[in-house]
């Protein structure tokens, strides 16, 4: 547990070290959250200003869950994020500029203008690029983990995320089940943000909690308060550790409220007043700030500095991407396969 710095009993050396590590990690996570919030606010405003085509999808309210997802992964692991995972992507090592490039369709981005917004990744670096069809990436991660096992790699883990809505697709079911059958080191973080687009939980599923699904797949299951950064860090750390150690696949179910529209085009007026008053409707970023202040983990000036630094990074990423060339249809390689001589010149 996160502990105050102003406690009575004097700490032993190792206790103090442990506490310091916990604090450090909390602050690191906070900074990913902050960066994400600011970046996504920027993207949203660019969308409103007509500078981004298609849509912008933010993770407001889910930054704690997402940051925790990225933070316990390391090189050699697989991360298959979904819609609301900017924080986790950044923590896992995705450069901010790649996000801006993808939203702006830069030719130099990982998707080269061919795909946009959240549909991005660098599979060569263990960052899978989601397809839209919810649930489809779970089994893909399973396959990647099996390949690593065959190659004799050790201590790796895969982590993928899903919404409570996506938990209802057939693809998710098949993916979870096959993960358990293959007993791969997988962590699935399912965030119940209480809506799938406009659809509330009662039209999505009828069990008490989605963590009740864990047993039925042979997963180990956890529930966590997604507004509480420390709970997210502890739970996901545990799940990742246990998966790495060869335990069965892990299902973490987070509870949260999505604090923005499904996309920036959506005013989320369907979110009821009642639900906005629920404890899970708190803003994880604000909660983390309260905690930082209360426990004296960082002073206000430091936090302000972080914010300024984050804003600089955001502006820089956007500015860089904006300077880059857009794709050009005439120069585009209109061939969907890599074996060029097998490209069918069908019109």
């Amino acid at each position, binding site marked *: 547990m996160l502990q105050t710095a102003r406690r009575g009993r004097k700490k032993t050396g190792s206790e103090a070290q442990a506490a310091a590590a916990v604090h450090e990690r909390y602050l690191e996570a906070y900074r990913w959250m902050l960066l994400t919030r600011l970046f996504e606010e920027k993207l949203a405003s660019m969308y409103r200003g007509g500078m981004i*085509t*298609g*849509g912008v999808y933010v993770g407001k309210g889910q930054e704690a869950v997402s940051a925790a997802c990225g933070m316990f992964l390391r090189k050699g692991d697989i991360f298959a994020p979904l819609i609301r995972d900017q924080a986790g992507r950044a923590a896992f090592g995705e450069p901010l500029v790649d996000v801006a490039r993808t939203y702006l*369709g830069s030719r130099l981005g990982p*998707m080269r*203008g*061919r*795909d*946009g*917004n959240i*549909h991005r990744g660098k599979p060569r670096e263990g960052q899978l690029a989601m*397809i*839209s*069809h*919810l649930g489809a990436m779970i089994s893909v991660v399973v396959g990647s983990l099996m390949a690593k096992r065959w190659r004799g790699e050790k201590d790796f883990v895969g982590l993928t995320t899903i919404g409570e*809505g*996506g938990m*209802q*697709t*057939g*693809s998710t079911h098949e993916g979870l089940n096959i993960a358990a059958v293959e007993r791969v080191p997988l962590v699935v973080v399912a965030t119940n943000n209480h809506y*799938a*687009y*406009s*659809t*509330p939980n009662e*039209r*999505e*599923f009828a069990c008490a909690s989605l963590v009740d699904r864990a047993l039925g797949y042979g997963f180990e299951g956890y529930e966590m308060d997604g507004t509480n950064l420390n709970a997210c860090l502890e739970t996901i750390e545990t799940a990742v550790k246990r998966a790495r150690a060869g335990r069965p696949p892990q299902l973490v179910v987070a509870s949260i409220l999505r604090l923005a529209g499904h996309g920036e085009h959506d005013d989320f*007026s*369907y979110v009821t007043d009642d639900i906005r008053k629920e404890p899970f409707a708190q803003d994880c970023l604000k909660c983390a700030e309260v905690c930082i202040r209360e426990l004296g983990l960082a002073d206000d000036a430091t936090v302000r500095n972080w914010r300024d630094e984050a804003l600089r990074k955001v502006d820089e990423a956007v500015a860089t991407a904006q300077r880059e060339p*857009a*794709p*050009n*249809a*005439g120069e*585009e390689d*209109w*061939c*969907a396969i890599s074996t060029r001589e097998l490209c*069918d010149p*069908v*019109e």
Partner: protein
Amino acid sequence: MSLTYLEAIREAQAKLLRDDPRVFIYGQDVGGTFGGAFKATKGLAKEFPGRVLNTPISEDAMTGVAIGAALEGMRPIVEMQFADFSSIALNQILNNAGTQYWRTNLPVPITVRLPSGGTKGSGPFHSQSMESLYAHYPGLIVMTPATVEDAYTMLIDAISIDDPVVYCEHKYLYYHLKADALPSEGMPIGRARVARAGRDLTIVSYSAMLHESLAAAEELARENWDIEVIDLRTVKPLDTSTVLGSVARTGRLLAVGESFPWGGVTAEVLARVASEGFHLLDAAPARLNAKDTPIPYHPNLWSAHRPSSHAIAAKARRLLRE
């Protein structure tokens, strides 16, 4: 009164819910105060309580539910959030709905609405035109309305038909098309329409591509070419005789579609005209489709991926010179 293509779809559904107690709407986000990702069912849940229902994200089960209800006499309308996600329901549509009547002698009057086709910035998974996949399998009617009027009357027809209908509505047309009033009756289902009469070349098209084709015809008219444009309206059944009638007048055929090229609607049109109207042709028939890659996100790429009026006109020009 002026209505968009999207409003026509909403009005048709309102009328169906009003007139026929067997009708209900089933899909992600169609209900509540929301009324669908594109608002095609806006207000209907309130007006028709219990008959416009949100579903879990389960395209397979949504369709299965509709099939089961249809077998018990209902007339369900399933809304896919995007046509692209109907890949998850494809098995139910092809193998369950599409085979029921042939196997059990009991038809399955479901209508599956697919918000189809490309719009700027929608990318590989929110832009697809899947009519060719559904038309390939037996047992289904596949509609592709191109006008506000057709969007309205054909949706009403779709629900009246005892067989499963895949109704492909084009997202690009949702707001772009307007009409002054809604007709009380449309052309018979299965019949193509001569959207523009001409004598030099026949362009066969449907859905959003009809409008690109008409624009191309305009462009060519300024060069004194007289282009006939056919709107297929349904791609299955495909009205071969109207197409042949037109080719008989013009001697030249260009088929234009937005789905992927291999085995698409345009291949089917060319195959029919070549086999049944070979002697009507004065020149090789041609086709123009989207490119054979996923549909790109960036507008620069997207507008080159789909046939534009200019690309159609260019292709037509080549054909006219042959």
